[in-house]
Every structure is written in C-alpha cells, then in structure tokens.
C-alpha cells in the first residue's frame, strides 16, 4: 500500500462532498423533517472543514467555532421540530410542495 498521505485538501474535499449531498437533499426531498435532516448534514460538513483547518494551523479557534455551530444547530432543531409537529397537527401533512398558504 503506497497511498499518498492525507492532507488538508482531502479533508476539505470530503467536507465539500458532504455539503453537496446535504444541499441535494434540501433541494429534492419534500418531507419537511427530511429537509431538516439534510440541513444537519450541511452543518456537519462545515464542522469538518473547521476542525481540519484547526488541525492544519495549530489553532483551537476552529474547534470553538464547531462548538457554537452545534449550539445553533440544537436551537434550530428544537424550534424546527416544534414547527414540524405543529404543521402536521394543523395541516395534516408534511409535504413542503403542498404548503402554499402564503401564496395566492
């Protein structure tokens, strides 16, 4: 086995791939819960980039930023899931394409 050593570009590439997968999920899924799930994927891709840069430059600030991203994700999920439950109770469906109450 003589694989080239893994460096910063590899990790940023993996982060980009995960980001794009999450973006495709947000754009193509119609269930609101799965859209929220794909958003988590995007946030985690950003976290990976932060940690990779933190390691490459020997600076802990990147890891602090991951901590804050996680806090924001937790707050977002709390409110987002509450809205999801409320929508399914009021409208009886979770299909994002069918929700056009604000459109006329």
């Amino acid at each position, binding site marked *: 086995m003589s*694989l*080239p*050593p*893994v*460096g*910063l*570009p*590899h*990790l*940023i*590439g*993996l982060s980009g*791939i*995960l980001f*794009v*997968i*999450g973006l495709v*999920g947000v754009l*193509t*899924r*119609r*269930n609101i*819960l*799965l859209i*929220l*799930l*794909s958003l*988590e*994927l995007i946030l*985690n891709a950003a*976290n*990976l980039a932060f*940690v*990779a840069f*933190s*390691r*490459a430059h*020997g600076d*802990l*600030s990147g*890891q*602090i930023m*991951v*901590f*804050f991203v*996680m*806090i*924001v994700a937790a*707050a*977002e*999920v*709390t*409110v987002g*899931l*509450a809205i*999801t*439950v*409320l929508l399914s109770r009021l409208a009886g469906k*979770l*299909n994002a394409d069918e929700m056009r109450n604000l459109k006329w």
Partner: protein
Amino acid sequence: MIHPALFYTVSALTVASALGVILARRPIYAVLSLVLVLFGLSTLFVALHAFFVAAIQIVVYAGAVLVLFLFVVMLLDMEPEALLRARNKTMMGVGILFGLFFLGQLAAVAKALPAATGKPLPGTTAAIGKLLFTTYALPFEAASLLLLVGIIGAIVLAKKKL
C-alpha cells in the same frame, strides 16, 4: 495527518451513509443513516486530535439531537415518500452545469490552500475551556441566550392554544 487507510475507509462509510440520508424512502432509515455519518465524522475528529469536539459530537448530536428527530418520526407516523424524478430536461442540464462549476471552484480552492503550518495543537479540553471563558466569553453568553430563545420558542409552539 491521518493514516490514509483509516481516512479512506471512514470517509467512504461517511459518504455512503450521507447518500443513505437523502435516498432513503423511509424517514427512520434516513435518521439512522445520519447517526452513522455523525459517528464517521467523530472518528475523523479523533484522528485530527479534536477529542473534545469528537466527544460532544457523540453526546450532543447523536445522543440528543437525533433522539429528538427519532421522537418526531415515531410521533408523526409518516409514510414512505416517493423520490423526486426530474422531468424537465433543461433544468436537469442547468443543474449539472452548475454542479460541475461548483466542483471546479472546489478544486481551485483546494489547490490554492495555504500550506499547513504543522504547529502542534494544544488540543486538550482544558485549553478549549480556557479559550471559551476568556477570548470567546461574549459569544458564549450570546449562545446561552440563543438556547433560551430556542426553549421558549419550542414551548410557545407546543402549547395547545396560541
């Protein structure tokens, strides 16, 4: 930085599970695939010497956030959803074009990255805690305010009568 065999194994598993998140027709499988993604990323964090981040990734994300997702999936009884099919060929072409453009941008950025300084990380939990309570004290307090707003928002939304 990371042993190549470890990196390629873990990243292949992570990407496969990420594809599972967006391709699974049943929501419960999508949530469980995301758990796999989080464990893969946590492995990479350990390999990058970010031990504290790896630990809170498991405890906070896989332990709390995804359990919340599982609760809602169980609560709402969702039927499997049909995957989206692209019927509009023009839009599909435009999408592929923009995807290739983004890939090119990514390659250009990866090529232009500044070289790693290779300084060793003072990567202990104690060092992160010290930084959090000195340099980043104000953002830390703001984050607690954000969490308070999140809690109040969830309670207000969950009440029977608004």
